[in-house]
């Protein structure tokens, strides 16, 4: 078994174990409708995790994913719904801003963690300006798409798989993905080979922006309204999802399938705790405990791999 497969095994296993536990506690979840309910909020989390993965791929970290997704959700629920042209232009501008941030971080040698932390306040502020109180409405097509009744398997299961597969093709199979991963693997080698690291970093940040926008739009499609604080916890969820899915903070080691499965696992962990009738006061802590447990098991895996 190649080490990549081994890395993917753990997130798959932890998802299976959690799913089994949920089905045991609540057998009625084992249905088309039940699965849809369990997983539909995982779609935006999965997209946000992919966005975070694009940043971690180039050895950076993005602390603004949560507020950025909230901002995009607010834009979708207001501008895209009311004046579509302006709305899409704002979202496109947000993607460009992300790409520009990547270029800036590379050009000035700034630490991404500081820049994105600062940007998180900018996005958060803009979101509050656009939508001071919860409200807005989802564009009709988005609502239809997110509530699509697909045959046999619910969309909440299909969509994450489609996302993972598409990103896998883009990042793991295409040449551009290889080059982008190279930035995380050995930046100096890329420079020596004559690639513009500024452009490459801007590209990966731009991709992160794109997936952040998609996450925001999906979220509005599901909830039919937005709020400036709707996705704040996505920042930590997305980082945890990438790492849970077999990624590493440095070295450009990432896995799109792993990241999506990681996101599904984290969403499921929340449902699992609800099914346990755990008091909401304890849920965040319990979620953290699950995360630590899985990561500890992963450490054992990695150690074994290193000695093998």
């Amino acid at each position, binding site marked *: 078994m190649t080490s990549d497969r081994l890395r993917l095994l753990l997130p798959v296993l932890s998802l299976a174990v959690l799913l089994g536990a949920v089905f045991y506690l609540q057998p009625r979840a084992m249905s088309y409708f039940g699965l849809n309910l369990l997983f539909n909020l995982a779609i935006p989390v999965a997209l946000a995790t992919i966005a975070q993965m694009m940043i971690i791929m180039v050895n950076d970290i993005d602390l603004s994913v949560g507020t950025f997704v909230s901002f995009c959700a607010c834009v979708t629920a207001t501008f895209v719904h009311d004046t579509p042209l302006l709305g899409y232009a704002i979202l496109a501008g947000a993607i460009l801003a992300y790409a520009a941030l990547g270029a800036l971080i590379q050009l000035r040698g700034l630490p991404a963690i500081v820049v994105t932390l600062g940007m998180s306040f900018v996005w958060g502020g803009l979101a509050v300006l656009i939508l001071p109180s919860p409200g807005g409405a989802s564009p009709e097509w988005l609502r239809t798409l997110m509530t699509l009744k697909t045959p046999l398997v619910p969309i909440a299961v299909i969509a994450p798989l489609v996302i993972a597969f598409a990103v896998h093709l883009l990042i793991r199979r295409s040449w551009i993905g*290889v080059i982008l991963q190279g930035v995380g693997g050995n930046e100096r080698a890329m420079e020596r080979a*004559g690639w513009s690291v500024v452009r490459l970093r801007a590209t990966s940040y731009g991709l992160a922006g794109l997936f952040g926008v998609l996450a925001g739009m999906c979220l509005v499609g599901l909830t039919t309204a937005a709020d400036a604080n709707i996705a704040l916890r996505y920042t930590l969820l997305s980082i945890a999802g990438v790492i849970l899915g077999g990624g590493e903070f440095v070295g450009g*080691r990432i896995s799109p399938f792993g990241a999506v499965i990681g996101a599904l696992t984290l969403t499921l962990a929340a449902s699992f705790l609800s099914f346990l009738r755990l008091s909401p006061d304890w849920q965040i802590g319990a979620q953290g405990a699950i995360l630590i447990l899985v990561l500890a098991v992963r450490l054992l895996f990695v150690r074994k791999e290193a000695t093998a």
Partner: protein
Amino acid sequence: MSFGPVHALRAASLTISAGECIGLVGHNGAGKSTLANVINGRLTQTQGAVRYRDGVGELRNSQNAQNAGVRSVFQELSLCPNLTVLENLRIPYRTMPRKGWRRAARQKMIDALDLVFPGHGIRPGATVGNLTIAERQMVEIAIAFADRDREPSLVILDEPTSSLDAAIARQLLDHIKRFCAAGGAVLFISHMMGEIFEVSTRIIIMKDGRIVDDQHASAFTRSSIVDAMGHVAPDDDSADTDQTARTLGAEVVRSPNGLNARAGEIVGLAGLAGHGQAEALAQLYFDHAPKWKSTSEPDVVFVAGDRARDGVMPLWSILQNLSLTTLPEFSRKVMVDRGREAGLVQSWQDRIGIRTDNLLNPILSLSGGNQQKVLFARALASSAPIVVMDDPMRGVDVGTKKEVYQMIRDEAATGRSFLWYSTETDEILECDRVFVFRAGHIAAELTGDEITEENILHASFEMQEAAH
């Protein structure tokens, strides 16, 4: 070529024509790597000019160099460890056709590896991070010789054999000869005299940023090269000093796999590269080093061979790097005694000859060999009775090596034990006792007169011959 006030390269004019293999020698900091970097366009010269075969004036040197087919392999590996071998070929091959690139890259990678290292056993789909350091070096060399959009015309190899074992190095040298016979040119930088003489048609000697000698290889002998490099230590055998009988003390360390050392003994770990020597040393070190608490009287200190990975603190000054291990010994309670620290470092600079005018300069301002000297001093300055060395002389020049050998012998005479993994036979011959490793186990233990190159090679290869 200048870096700020430092002239790394002063008078260096050089013409390389097709079919030539040029051996470039010089001690550490002589400007070899700088010269190579100017030729491949990575550095732009502050004065003078570089002209390529079909160079046009408008482009930058690096582009001209690329267009002319100049390729380089450097001491520090420049692969992406998170990517596969074939994906790593894609990185320097920027104009690769986009359709079906994976299949093309796989084929080109297989061709290149087969060409240079027949029987290499490296899968093009393997992730580079999972390869041994020798395999990575092989991949990197193969990529340099690979057929890309342009044929390679000049390949610059900077210490290419430093992490390869003898058999693989042999394949590389053979390939260099074939490559030059077919009209390619090679600039071969090495500290291994044997290799230089074997492949070079012309030898260039550098000293203090100048080319001091440039003649046909047959005009040199080993000792004339060492003389020209300007080192006092001649290349004659120092066997007499080696044989001065030291009284060995009691056994001070023994590891489960049978590795052991007595007080005052220099124990060598030999065998083909990557056969478990480094792991055995690391294991021994971690078994004896305290896990939680640093102590003012450590049992064992470690000299790293892979400087960037487990030696140098890149952001720290030379002084801080040198005093790192000894801080607990030289400190009062929790505070560092700055005065004693500076005194210690100053005395070691004098003893080991670190080339710098200011010890507060960042460690990375030193050349590789001088960085290694700092790491040596860091370990030797400690009071630890056991010194573990993981191929510490990688890329260190002959003169420095001689100085360090002498220092090791002196230290051993005072009762210190050394465990020394080395890929170079000369170094192994300095040892009192040698363990030859094969496939992670000790294949032979040689003492005294048994320590010869033949015996070591025999022990390293026995199994492989039997398997055929």
